[in-house]
């Protein structure tokens, strides 16, 4: 009922506004004074000019508001290049933006209708057309050249000494798998997945899996100044590993493995100081719509020194141990291995 009344009220208000609008128009038509119409035209021209300048002020104000809220300095080598390219593009487009908008509003004001104005019949000019085809073409060529150089850079093969880590998305969290001592990720198969005790479907016949470590909290640890290569996958729908502090992202697509690599240059601790935010944390945001929990699909990146990394690693249990050694005193082991129902882990005890 109240909805109905509100709707009715809103509607009524509109009708009243309409009537006022109409009355004001009729009044001017009836007075029929010529210059009334030019007055309106003039007023509109001035409002356009005001709009333009208010817009400029708004842009400035917007910059002020956002200045302290943008991302901190890029935390990897390619990210720094990214920011440079971004500002070059911003400069090019910014100049075009201000020039064309200024011309648009200037012409609107300058050539507003007056009783005496004569227009110029100016229908084409090859010279002008060529001019403003070639200039944008050249500008584009420059932007493409910079872009492709950087693109080749970020998509190049990871350095040979890069640490390989696997990141797998599922509704609605990230699983991060580390290769363990043997430095090699074992095979996995989606048919072997079990939410109870084999969340990634590790193939226990593959000995490389025995020492693999899985962070179910989505913690991606990296050593500062050491390249990391991510192998990205998904268990169910498409997700996306979004690393905005590193200026990269890559989709996680079921059925295929995508990759990306980066070389972090700033540890989480250093970033806390740089930003003055003691809670600072590098976050992994899921950037591809993946269902109702999409907005909560959060992981974290911890960039640390080699010593810290090694210490963290040493404290981790292998996924195999977590799920197959009931005696192991670990809190992470939430799902005790089920008996006969799932045979894979048992079958794989002997690698």
């Amino acid at each position, binding site marked *: 009922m109240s909805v109905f009344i509100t709707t009715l009220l809103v509607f009524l208000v509109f009708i009243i506004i309409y009537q006022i609008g109409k009355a004001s128009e009729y009044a001017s038509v009836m007075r029929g004074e010529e210059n009334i119409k030019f007055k309106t035209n003039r007023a509109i021209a001035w409002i356009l000019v005001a709009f333009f300048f208010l817009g400029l002020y708004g842009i400035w104000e917007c910059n002020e508001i956002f200045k302290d809220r943008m991302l901190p300095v890029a935390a990897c080598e390619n990210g720094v290049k*990214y920011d440079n390219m971004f500002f070059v593009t911003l400069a090019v487009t910014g100049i075009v933006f201000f020039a064309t908008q200024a011309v648009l509003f200037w012409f609107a004001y300058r050539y507003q209708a007056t009783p005496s104005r004569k227009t110029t*019949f100016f229908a084409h000019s090859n010279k002008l057309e060529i001019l403003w085809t070639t200039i944008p073409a050249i500008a584009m060529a420059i932007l493409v050249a910079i872009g*492709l150089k950087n693109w080749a850079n970020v998509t190049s093969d990871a350095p040979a000494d890069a640490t390989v880590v696997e990141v797998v998305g599922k509704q609605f969290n990230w699983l991060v798998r580390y290769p363990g001592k043997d430095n090699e990720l074992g095979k996995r198969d989606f048919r072997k997945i079990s939410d109870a005790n084999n969340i990634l479907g590790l193939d226990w016949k593959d000995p490389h899996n025995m020492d693999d470590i899985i962070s179910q909290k989505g913690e991606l640890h990296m050593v500062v100044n050491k390249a990391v290569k991510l192998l990205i996958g998904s268990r169910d729908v*498409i997700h*996306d590993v979004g690393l905005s502090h590193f200026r990269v992202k890559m989709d996680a697509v079921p059925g295929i493995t995508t990759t990306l690599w980066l070389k972090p240059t700033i540890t989480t601790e250093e970033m806390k100081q740089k930003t003055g935010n003691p809670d600072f944390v590098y*976050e992994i945001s899921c950037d591809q719509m993946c269902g109702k929990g999409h907005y909560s699909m959060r992981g974290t990146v911890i960039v640390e020194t080699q010593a810290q990394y090694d210490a963290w690693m040493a404290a981790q249990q292998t996924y195999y141990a977590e799920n197959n050694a009931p005696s192991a005193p670990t809190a992470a082991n939430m799902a005790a291995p089920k008996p006969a129902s799932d045979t894979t882990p048992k079958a794989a005890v002997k690698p």
Partner: protein
Amino acid sequence: MNHAEIIIDGHNVAHHAAAEHHDHEHHEQHFIWKYIFSQDHKMISKQFLITGIIWAIIGALMSVFFRLQLGFPDSTFPIMEKFLGDWAKGGKLTPEFYYALITMHGTILVFFVLTAGLSGTFANLLIPYQIGARDMASPFMNMLSYWFFFAASIIMLVSLFVETGPASGGWTTYPPLSALKEASIGSGIGMDLWLMGMALFVVSSLLGGLNYIATILNMRTKGMTMTRMPLTIWALFFTAVLGVLSFPVLFSGVVLLIFDRNFGTSFYLSEIFIGGKALPHIGGSAILYQHLFWFLGHPEVYIIMLPGMGMASEILATHSRKPIFGYFAMIISLVGITLLAFLVWAHHMFVTGMSPFLGSIFVLLTLLIAVPSAVKVFNWLTTMWRGNIRFNPPMLFAIGFVSLFISGGLTGLFLGNSALDIHLHDTYFVVAHFHIVMGVSAFFGMFAGIYHWFPKMFGRFMNNTLGYIHFFVTIAGAYLIFWPMHYEGIAGMPRRYYDFSAWESFKHFQGINAFISIISIIVFFAQLLFVVNFFASIFKGRKLTTQNPWGSTTLEWTTPINPGHGNWPGEIPEVYRWPYDYKDDGNGGDFISQTTPLRPGEESH
């Protein structure tokens, strides 16, 4: 007659406007054939327009609901529960329904409003009028096109009310999310309805498009060579070409998805573990769908944009009282945009893991499209140079169109460069980009067209004062809403998030999100003002007293104020010149109609 009047109500001095023709209709048509199953292009155009307006209100209302959630995640709005029932229990949207709303908002505005509502209205209205034809090549197919659209609309509407809710995987509905009922409740019956609705929509769009092409190619009046067609017609022609060539690809994508959903095929599915079990699908490719979708999807954005470009060209010239600058360059740039529109689709897929080399090619082609776009902008600006500009609502919206097209086009240069897109993809930067360039700018083209041709459609004017309020609130609001979103996107804020409060990197944008939401509600009400103006003016608007109120050169203004079926009571006029002769006619007028023969010694354009 006094020159001054042109500016606002624009009674014009056309020398041939004096003759009032009597109505040509001999027989009274039955209501059903006249208003419902009409085959008259003018009536079909109104049907598309009014259906489009209804959809626009629904789609915009959805955005108000989800903006309330984004702006005020901690508050409750009991009024929402009234509208949405259990989907907003206690006055707070559920995440599931938040996603359903954004999905349907996108689908409705992109397809049902800015494709069918826009092309359907103006192609139907203007093609026969401006090329000098009595109706479309096939009036019957034309009617079918509307009714398929209507059927698609009903199915989409029904999907809003099913128990598991409408589709909720985003307007792009990527599988596997959209393919698997286990992945999301919106991928249940709601998704089936979405797919059926879109399939019917494609049929409607093809019937319409083929008709538009056939009409333009075959039914031009004597003297109306292709290079004497107004740019609106050129733009609508390429719009139809884009649609006819790309919608079938979407159709195939949709059909394969229906198969995957219902018949156990694996076109898009591979190696999936969901709902506690591994699915049998192997060997499909989720990315295949994206190729099929964007092969339509990118041309689609130009399907939305081109009609606005055409109308803005026409309106800027008319109300600047000057010829469009670079008529041929405008046509060539339309050709360029049309061709390139088919060759850039993968710029939506730079981070799907596709080959970096392929990515490079798409970068090159994508940035190339900026060149014809830039040419158009410069030509519009030059058209205004040394004009005699009347600021009535159509002209203001055309100016706004140019401003927004510049702003939104420039951000495309960031996104089209894969090296930059790799961070900006699927952030609010993308949301800002496409809302400005496609959402608002295309809407401005549409508004310009409505204000401009309303007198032709209904024989009355829309109210100017309300038009001015509508314009200024909308353009200021559009910039206030979407400008800050660029910054949020550069800061990495992802799109399609229900709540940011758990994110250390994004939660400090809360205040700005609230600001944006407030503005969007104001803008929503400004649009309602337009709707009221529109409907009230149909019945109460100031009546036209001359045939050609704006002093236009084109043929639609040579028809009687309220033309019957067939448009011209007598012979169809013959055309002698191009449509932009805004110059001294030798009798004190400032334009020469296309139907006026060249004067002795006068050069044709």
